């Protein structure tokens, strides 16, 4: 028995219907920890480099990590991974709620789903029973309605991970939904699930999760609960969640507006957290074992539309489905959020791509005829909903957009690539990096494309100088190690970032549940570094090199200055981006071409990767010594 873990992995072949249960090995568990770590290693080892992300050889990996299901701050997460149809590289996305813990209570740390079913199915898991079942009844339904139906059919205490019509129709930014409004949203994992014809995974677990020191864990985390309950950040978090940052992001000129044309939306007051809480809030909704309850559950009815319930809008949705599409009423943003959730598209990439469509329409690059007689105006809910419908059912030009913003831009042509907001095919999160260069560097270098969760730097950018370029790369590297670590351990990052639960305390929790008394933060950070290099190598092996050529955003971010708002006039040049990349590669121990070096891979014991990169001539030569410590912790200091 391995303490801390469910103890088993399952390998499910959808074509042969073969289901293998394999005990989890302690060595593998400690080496890769779960979540993002398991995903990274298995994708690298098992998926052929030429495999189509939406073909039979790609694998869908579902894995709660070590802390999921435990009383820890807070073990609520579950990672979904696959080769991403957006980036054509390693993809992982994390969802909160109760799904990961439930898998562990059923005794599983890892599901590896292979091949393609010959008809729509769902996976039924109840402790030892693992079955591939017919899903004809549920296929075609929206995520929210189908989840409800599953619960009615199987029982309220089943936890469901599900795709909507977008995933079924292989929309490349489709998400996996859970608990009526939580999503493993990014990287298009929902499309991979749809390509395998898996509508849902339903799980119920009644096992005791093997835990090394139950009483120690109880005392340890109870003390943290007591301490953080009176933390000044706790009450505001509980009341407003993340929505309140719409105002802040505007006041500091980083808020994406009208498809990132500018970074200030003058009518933001209508879509901030206060109107959300005042007008729409039904209840506060928390993930498993979390006492911060940042989830806001809302109810909204627009004239002529059905009453809808939606979890959110959270900040990212409030940005990308809000001001980025020109919406100035919280009701509209909440409705857009519901449209994305129920159809099963990521509300971040979804908002981003609709905004791109809106800018194309504004510029006359797409016509009313192409929109089936509709328009695509900023801030119009009907237009938003209709366009999403065209995308998820791939009607007309909706088909181009369903394949992601890069494909859409190339089909539209006429210079649309310039404002197709993305890095490596992944649409950008809700912060504009022109007013915060390190944030842009974070997007440029993230393993999955332009996503904010690897490193978030806005306050640091302000501290070190809003338009300063040099000296920021090391901090981005540090953040790219510490922040994704929480996805590897499958716990929520917010307790670390927001209420002063230290990274060391998360390591203490890992020691208590696993009994690995010598586990250290250094070991965890080394794992982060290994994952990062492995994913980079994987990307290069799939897409060719040099790595540097993939690390640029669309041209808007280095050719246009910010026209309005607090960051007015901020502009980055291509030279600026190159300086940041040079510093970044150096801090990582990579070559100037952005490829990992033999030295860094050897230092991380990734010897198989050295051999693979060497074979295709992609090992970088270092011109400077390998930095022994990669990345630098940022300590804020009052000026």
């Amino acid at each position, binding site marked *: 028995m391995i303490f801390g873990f469910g103890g088993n992995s399952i390998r499910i072949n959808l074509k042969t219907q073969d289901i293998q249960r394999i005990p989890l090995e302690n060595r593998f568990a400690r080496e890769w920890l779960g979540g993002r770590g398991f995903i990274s290693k298995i994708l690298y080892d098992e998926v052929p480099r030429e495999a189509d992300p939406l073909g039979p050889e790609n694998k869908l990996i579902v894995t709660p990590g070590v802390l999921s299901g435990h009383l820890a701050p807070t073990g609520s997460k579950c990672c979904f991974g696959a080769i991403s149809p957006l980036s054509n590289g390693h993809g992982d996305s994390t969802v909160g709620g109760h799904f990961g813990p439930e898998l562990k209570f059923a005794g599983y740390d890892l599901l590896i789903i292979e091949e393609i079913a010959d008809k729509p199915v769902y996976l039924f898991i109840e402790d030892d029973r693992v079955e591939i079942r017919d899903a004809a009844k549920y296929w075609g339904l929206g995520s929210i309605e189908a989840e409800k139906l599953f619960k009615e059919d199987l029982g309220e205490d089943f936890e469901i991970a599900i795709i909507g019509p977008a995933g079924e129709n292989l929309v490349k930014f489709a998400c996996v939904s859970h608990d009526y409004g939580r999503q493993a949203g990014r990287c298009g994992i929902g499309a991979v699930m749809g390509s395998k014809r898996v509508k849902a995974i339903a799980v119920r677990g009644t096992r005791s999760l093997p835990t090394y020191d139950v009483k120690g864990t109880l005392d340890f985390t109870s003390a943290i609960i007591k301490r953080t309950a009176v933390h*000044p950040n706790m009450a505001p978090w509980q009341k407003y969640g993340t929505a309140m940052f719409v105002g802040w992001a505007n006041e500091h000129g980083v808020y994406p507006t009208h498809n990132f044309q500018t970074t200030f939306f003058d009518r933001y007051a209508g879509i901030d957290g206060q109107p959300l809480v005042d007008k729409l809030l039904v209840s506060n909704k928390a993930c498993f074992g979390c006492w911060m309850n940042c989830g806001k559950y809302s109810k909204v009815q627009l004239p002529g539309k059905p009453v809808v319930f939606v979890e959110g809008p*959270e900040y990212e949705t409030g940005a990308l489905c809000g001001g980025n599409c020109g919406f100035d009423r919280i009701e509209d943003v909440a409705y857009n959020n519901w449209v994305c959730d129920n159809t099963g598209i990521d509300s971040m990439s979804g908002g981003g791509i609709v905004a791109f469509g809106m800018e194309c329409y504004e510029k006359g690059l797409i016509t009313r005829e192409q929109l089936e007689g509709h328009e695509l105006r900023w801030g119009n809910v009907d237009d938003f909903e209709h366009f999403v419908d065209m995308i998820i059912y791939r009607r007309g030009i909706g088909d181009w957009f369903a394949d992601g913003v890069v494909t859409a831009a190339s089909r539209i042509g006429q210079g649309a690539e310039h404002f197709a907001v993305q890095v490596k095919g992944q649409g950008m999160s809700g912060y504009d990096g022109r007013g915060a260069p390190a944030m842009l560097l974070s997007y440029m270098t993230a393993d999955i494309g332009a996503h904010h969760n690897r490193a978030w730097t806005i306050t640091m950018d302000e501290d070190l100088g809003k338009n300063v370029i040099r000296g920021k790369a090391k901090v981005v590297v540090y953040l790219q190690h510490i922040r994704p670590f929480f996805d590897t351990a499958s716990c929520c990052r917010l307790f670390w970032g*927001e209420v002063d639960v230290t990274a060391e305390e998360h390591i203490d929790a890992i020691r208590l549940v696993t009994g690995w008394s010598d586990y250290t933060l250094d070991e965890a950070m080394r794992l982060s570094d290994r994952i990062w290099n492995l994913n980079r190598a994987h990307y290069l092996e799939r897409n060719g090199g040099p790595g540097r050529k993939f690390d640029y955003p669309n041209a808007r971010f280095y050719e246009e200055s910010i026209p309005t708002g607090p960051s007015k006039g901020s502009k980055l040049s291509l030279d600026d981006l190159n300086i940041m990349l040079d510093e970044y590669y150096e801090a990582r121990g990579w070559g100037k071409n952005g490829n990992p070096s033999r030295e860094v891979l050897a230092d991380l014991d990734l010897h198989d990767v050295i051999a693979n990169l060497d074979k295709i001539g992609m090992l970088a030569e270092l011109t400077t010594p390998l930095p022994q410590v990669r990345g630098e912790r940022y300590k804020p200091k009052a000026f």
Partner: protein
Amino acid sequence: MTLYLKAGGMLREYLQPDVDVFTRRVECTEGLSLRDILISIGIRPVHVAMAFSGDRLIPLSHVPSDGETITLRPPVQGG
């Protein structure tokens, strides 16, 4: 007049609490806005996403009264 400012997270490192682990006592001139007070003690407004007086959300333009306790919430480290 006297003002009590409370903060946690990264903001605490700027606030340098002296009353308890979260709270700093600040002596300031009456009539200044919260924004001005923050700047005068070395806190950039970018580090403050929200401010509360009790349960009530207040803007940075708020003019505090003597003895008031104000809680500052830093921005989410990436929504």
